């Protein structure tokens, strides 16, 4: 791979590039799934290629190819430089890169059981048993299970001398029951919706999830939702489970802190951000209990946003985002951090694969657990009256990330400090900063889970990316509930 990178970088410099990077990526994926007991997915894929990013006359150019012959790679590098020259034609200010010492390193995400070594029969047998448990509950009209594995190996080189090899193993698994009756389609998923839980782990994650043991419960909840009363409309105290809170963090904190959005680079597609530069260190984003970090370091946990170096060779960091409620930091790259006068990139430039240019991305954007001891049971018992919601069903937020609305799969009344009736079609909505300022309790580390969002979409051409979000159940006072179904 080093040879491929050398061809790329030498050709780029010869063509006039002032800076060059080559990322060679070898990726392998496997997806298995069942649907009503039949195999619905059995697929394996492999891909190898190189992406070459260059600066020439202060403009960016990027080209990618799978032709890894010397001729193919050099031609790709020259195309990247030609593209960069075209960029410079319509560019008021040349790109500036903050300095970054070149690193030579190797890193692999921790993995106990390589999922590609687990016999496919064993994986399918587990999924079939889960599927059977789901369908054992009368009233379930559709059962789904899935498992996915990814091995992502990347060699990064740049003209400054960096040479970094990183290998990631990612595993995901989950199940869902659906039930239709009368005028309602209901769904319950485990351990999360849209495919379950994903982490940078091996097959040990699948075993930790205890899918078979939980399938019957979620299937019963799914059928019970058909007869459950509609979640009421109005203002209520709201408790969110950690998976829904993870997505709330993703949408209403993770995206608005992306510096490329703040600078307007995403204005035509993903949108901009209400977090304009004047709000840094001044905006009260949330209550004193709200402490959020963007932590890519392996010590944060096996999140989908865990790495040793980002995709321009900057070491993983922990960036304080919200400290005791005050907005403190952005997600940045070498070029965007330069625009706002920083001394160093925050290390958040990431690419979907070899064919896509790296862009500013979340790592693990997590709400830190409460410092005081508080279990989930303590949280419910201290709530009095309210609504507890679990597992995301729908999510939507405006293009500056102020107004959001989320739907969940299930909710329960909280009456007198106890969980009561099951409620269907729950939803809540609000304005980002008002919502986070209404947080008055968060559970401690015992209840904290690092959730994986495997499919965050951003950029043109659109790129999917895995991000991590740690959260513990938390309470928000007097939130608007049920607006989605209101008149």
């Amino acid at each position, binding site marked *: 791979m080093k040879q491929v990178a050398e061809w790329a970088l030498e050709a780029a410099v010869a063509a006039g590039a002032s800076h060059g990077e080559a990322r060679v990526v070898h990726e392998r994926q496997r997806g298995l799934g069942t649907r009503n007991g039949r195999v619905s997915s059995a697929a394996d894929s*492999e891909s190898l290629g190189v992406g070459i990013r260059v600066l020439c006359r202060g403009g*960016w150019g990027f080209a990618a190819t799978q032709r890894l012959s010397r001729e193919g790679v050099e031609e790709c590098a020259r195309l990247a430089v030609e593209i960069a020259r*075209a960029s410079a034609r319509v560019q008021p200010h040349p790109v500036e890169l903050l300095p970054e010492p070149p690193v030579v390193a190797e890193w692999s995400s921790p993995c106990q059981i390589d999922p590609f070594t687990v016999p496919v029969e064993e994986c399918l047998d587990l999924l079939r048993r889960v599927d059977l448990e789901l369908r054992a509950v009368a009233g379930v009209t559709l059962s789904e299970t899935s498992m996915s594995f990814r091995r992502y190996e990347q060699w990064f080189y740049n003209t400054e001398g960096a040479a970094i090899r990183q290998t990631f193993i990612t595993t995901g698994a989950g199940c869902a029951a659906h039930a*239709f009756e009368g005028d309602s389609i209901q769904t319950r998923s485990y351990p999360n919706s849209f495919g379950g839980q994903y982490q940078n782990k091996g097959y040990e994650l699948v075993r930790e999830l205890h899918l078979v043991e939980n399938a019957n419960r979620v299937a019963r909840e799914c059928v019970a939702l058909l007869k459950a009363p509609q979640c009421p409309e109005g203002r209520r105290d709201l408790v969110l489970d950690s998976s829904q809170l993870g997505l709330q963090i993703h949408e209403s904190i993770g995206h608005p802190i992306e510096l490329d959005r703040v600078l307007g*680079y995403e204005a035509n597609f993903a949108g901009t951000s209400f977090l304009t530069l004047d709000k840094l260190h001044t905006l009260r984003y949330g209550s004193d209990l709200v402490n959020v970090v963007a932590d890519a370091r392996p010590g944060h946990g096996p999140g989908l946003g865990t790495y040793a170096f980002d995709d321009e060779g900057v070491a993983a960091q922990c960036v304080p985002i919200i400290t005791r409620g005050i907005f403190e930091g952005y997600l940045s790259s070498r070029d965007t951090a330069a625009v706002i006068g920083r001394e160093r990139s925050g290390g958040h430039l990431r690419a979907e694969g070899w064919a896509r240019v790296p862009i500013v991305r979340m790592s693990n954007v997590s709400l830190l657990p409460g410092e005081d001891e508080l279990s989930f049971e303590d949280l419910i018992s201290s709530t009095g009256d309210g609504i507890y919601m679990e597992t995301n069903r729908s999510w939507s937020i405006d293009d500056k990330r102020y107004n959001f609305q989320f739907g969940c799969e299930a909710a329960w009344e909280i009456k007198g400090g106890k969980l009561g009736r099951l409620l269907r079609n729950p939803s809540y*909505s609000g304005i980002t900063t008002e919502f986070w300022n209404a947080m008055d309790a968060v559970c401690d580390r015992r209840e904290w889970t690092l959730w994986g969002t495997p499919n965050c979409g951003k950029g043109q051409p659109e790129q999917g990316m895995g991000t991590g979000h740690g959260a513990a159940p938390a309470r928000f006072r007097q939130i608007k509930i049920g607006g989605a179904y209101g008149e």
Partner: protein
Amino acid sequence: MASEERSMNANMLSQERCAEIFDRVRRAAPDLDLEVTLAGGHSALTRWANNGITQNVREEGCEVSVRAQMGGRTARATTNLLDDDGLRDVVRRAEALARVQEEDEDLLPMLAAAEAGESAVLERFDDATAVLGAGERASQVDAMVQVARREGLNSAGAYSNGAQFEAIFNSRGVARWHQESFAEASVTMQGDDSSGWQKRNYTRAAEVDARAMAEIAAEKARRSARPIEVPPGKYTVILEPSAVADLLGFLAADFSGLALLEQRSCLHGRLGARLFGENITIVDDCAAAGQTGAAFDGEGQARQPLTLVERGTVKDVAMARATAARMAKSEWAGKLKTQPTGHGLSLPNESGEAAVNIVFQVAEGAAKSVEEMVAATGRGLLVTRLWYIREVDAYEKMLTGMTRDGTFLVENGRVTAGVRNLRFNQSVLKLLQSVLDLGRPGRACGEESFNMVAPAMRAEGFQFTEVTRF
């Protein structure tokens, strides 16, 4: 030969080259039933913001996907390693994944050429569009930036082009190939407190009038400046074609036979009676003007035109071969056609089939312009585009989302002000029961769904539930 052209030739595989790769794959496992799908090409995109180019990319590639089948077992493996070792390995992986499965008695044999149907050859490739280079894209971007500078606005957008091919071959004689080119532009013009947007996508770059798009987006930004806040509630809306396409795209998945069988389609329990207004007729036709894509599906079956909705009543749904076979043995036999329609997805899959060549039909002479719709409205909202649409309720087909980049108050037949953006929670079923006027359908594209041939639409009782801060 220019580098763009050389690169295109390396990745746009001809039908003959695809057939040769299929033969190499077959030689690796001559006794297996194999289906080989090939796809590749190149695409490039120039992106700008703050009136300057910020990102400029190009990618090329080609992959081979092999489906192996043995009796009632099947699996797929894909690779972009096209040498002999790579092809042997991808066959081995597909076979290994299939071999360990339990038999599925309902799995059909691979499609035979004799039952695949006649597939139209769709001419959707333009050489000039395929090889358009970074210099030409920069010139198009510059034209849009110049409009922004002249108007004192801040522009952002993207201009992209490329070419792709897809082919499918199998052991039972199916051999299909298709190629097409594309050019697409989108532009956002931003003022201090307002914005405007336009997007177009065509087979030929010559049809993209970048400057005209920039002028419309700039006009929307100017006219929506100093937005006022209107209260949430039910409004008569005039939805421009992008907004209509983005909403209707969420309904397309319900026109699937498998979705009906699995009781996840909102059409379940609603067939037979008129469901929408009599002014609603929607077909699926891959050969229609303004459509894109190949004339065959994921198994190589010829795509057939479908009447999805005729004067408000659901007529047909899309069906893959396996779905049609199951339908024939189900409660739906006799109520719906149970023949494959050529809309199947690549096997194995979770969703069965999809109608993706949606064409809205409006009688000639009945179509109204957006200006006429505005003139006919006492009080309402004119919506340029919608954003972050998600399904809130699967059976009521209730969607939520936001307005964005050009939302206007209409009073007494005139646009009187820009308004702050609103959140909607609206059933698409109810929307299509409440359409007052339709425009002339044309190729429409948003960012939330897929491109389709859709009109502007005036409808009453559209439910807005909240207002945001801008």
